[in-house]
């Protein structure tokens, strides 16, 4: 009956009750909305990182100076195909190694042309990158050996060169004026973690790139080496072994720094996630402040309520209410207020997150954990901020209370 009485009282003073809970509604709502946006952003990042491949290790020529900026982009050409093959032999944890060399070139089909990064790759590259096809398929080792003029194009290139609906497989395109046959269209991958359009790409066999397109200098050298391990747990150890073998091959003395850069997909992912986490934490703190304000609002209104109902409290005490009855009554009002506020906040938070998706296009993921935590938090706020007024009410002297006008 206490809960019913409390509920009825709040219901009859509906306007005031709603105004009181606005702080909680905003607090809970913003927590839910922000966490949803944050989770959505995190999932986008995770997808982007995953789109790079599975358990992938990236080896770039040139050292990383302090601050992570690579010195001499491609200037010091220190990685070779032979390096890759040696690594494959010696590091047992690796299930694949691949290599690539890239340049931006003009690609023409019919009367459409498009400037595209063209990558000469080993066939293993596609396996390391987990890259699927929407039509056609990859080139083979024998095509590599024969330096065949076959090409794979990405979705963006497809859209820009070919009229919609036309299957480019079998058609001839010209890469830097050299004719190539399209033998496959790559599945879309979207944006990379550092913002590049991964679908704006053309792949040709590495050997073909070396000899027929890029030019004959620096045969055997690569723009980047790729490797992958079977299991994510092996990445760290594989990286160390690669480092050791490459240093041997490049005849580096122990005091000399690496003349290459090793990066795993996990590292890249971690950086991005770290930023995301910081952002989420910040938004969470702001929202928590709002909840705090909401709690203070409840306490304030309850204190006013206690004062207004002093005489009523006196009467209740005169007709038999004990201290605990009065305490529980006002505490119930506080908790109901904050619970209803919490509920409304959850609803508005979900609506807000969905609205953001509609308007700004950011994906949002409603986390049930966040909803539960925010709701419990709001109940706790009601409890904590209601204790003081409820206690004050229960400690009133009945005689003074009865005399109160």
């Amino acid at each position, binding site marked *: 009956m206490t809960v019913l009485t409390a509920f009825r009282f709040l219901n009859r003073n509906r306007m005031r009750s709603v105004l009181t809970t606005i702080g909680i509604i905003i607090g809970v709502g913003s927590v839910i909305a922000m966490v949803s946006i944050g989770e959505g952003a995190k999932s986008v990042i995770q997808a982007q990182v995953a789109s790079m491949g599975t358990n992938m290790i990236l080896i770039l020529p040139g050292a990383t100076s302090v601050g992570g900026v690579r010195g001499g982009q491609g200037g010091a050409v220190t990685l070779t195909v032979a390096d890759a093959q040696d690594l494959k032999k010696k590091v047992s944890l690796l299930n694949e190694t691949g290599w690539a060399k890239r340049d931006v070139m003009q690609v023409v089909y019919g009367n459409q042309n498009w400037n595209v990064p063209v990558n000469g790759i080993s066939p293993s590259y596609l396996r390391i990158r987990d890259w699927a096809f929407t039509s056609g398929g990859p080139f083979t080792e024998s095509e590599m050996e024969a330096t065949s003029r076959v090409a794979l194009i990405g979705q963006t290139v497809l859209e820009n060169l070919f009229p919609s609906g036309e299957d480019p497989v079998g058609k001839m395109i010209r890469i830097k004026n050299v004719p190539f046959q399209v033998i496959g269209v790559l599945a879309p991958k979207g944006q990379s973690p550092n913002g590049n359009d991964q679908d704006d790409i053309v792949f040709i066999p590495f050997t073909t790139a070396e000899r027929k397109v890029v030019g004959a200098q620096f045969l055997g050298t690569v723009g980047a080496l790729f490797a992958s391990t079977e299991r994510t747990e092996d990445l760290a150890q594989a990286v160390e072994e690669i480092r050791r073998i490459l240093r041997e091959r490049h005849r580096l003395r122990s005091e000399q720094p690496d003349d290459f850069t090793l990066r795993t997909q996990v590292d890249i992912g971690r950086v991005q996630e770290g930023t995301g986490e910081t952002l989420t934490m910040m938004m969470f703190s702001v929202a928590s402040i709002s909840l705090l304000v909401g709690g203070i609002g409840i306490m304030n209104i309850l204190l006013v309520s206690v004062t207004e109902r002093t*005489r009523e409290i006196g*009467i209740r005490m005169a007709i038999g209410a*004990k201290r605990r009855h009065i305490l529980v009554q006002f505490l119930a009002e506080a908790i109901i207020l904050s619970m209803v506020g919490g509920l409304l906040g959850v609803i508005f938070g979900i609506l807000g997150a969905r609205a953001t998706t509609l308007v700004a296009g950011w994906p949002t993921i409603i986390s049930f954990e966040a909803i539960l935590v925010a709701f419990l938090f709001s109940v706790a706020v009601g409890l904590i901020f209601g204790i003081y007024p409820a206690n004050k009410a229960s400690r009133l002297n009945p*005689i003074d209370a009865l005399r109160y006008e």
Partner: protein
Amino acid sequence: MDSLIACANLWKTYRLGDINVDALRGVDLTVQPGEFVAIMGSSGSGKSTLMNILGCLDVPTQGEYWLKGQDIARAESEELAEIRSRTIGFVFQNFSLIPKTSALENVQLPLFYQGVSLRDQRSRAEMALVRVGLKDREHHYPSQLSGGQQQRVAIARALVSSPSLILADEPTGNLDTQSGQEIMGIFQQLNQQDGMTILVVTHEHDIAAYASRHIVMKDGRIMIDQPTSEIHQVIS
């Protein structure tokens, strides 16, 4: 026969700043079950203070107070609340019903605080409302009831816990003459038919006339304590 109320040498002193105010200065009072007593006096006479102590809302600074053979003077507030709710029914000057709550629920309230089951609360409350003739209004809110009707609900509330004693503080103060007489009529009924002990505080002689015993207080002391007929003789 054991007295219902037995007070000896009651003193109540308040501290106002650095002055001591004696609201009661040695009050002796005995009330038997079934009496109908009117307590009169101007403001400052101490009648309200006496009512508070008799009603277990306050404790005397000095002196004895035995209610139904129990020593009240030295009880703790928790105990007082317990005794209060079981033994005493209060009727206040301004009805003091909980607003926006039905008459029935108002009457149920003392039983709720005693932990009585909801079903018993309801049935006993209904009986009390029947006793004051307001059964047909049991679902009305106070704002939908006249002054007299509200006071009747208050009386029903006072009755619902089957108290030994009803204390009424200026029960007709906010009522017109006719309603006031109705209320006093109910008190008389309760006293004569049910043997309820009733103490009424009032400053109106017409109201006090309903009682069988008059007490007049002045400056914290009882000046007059006599059966009614004798008072009327003295005045006229």
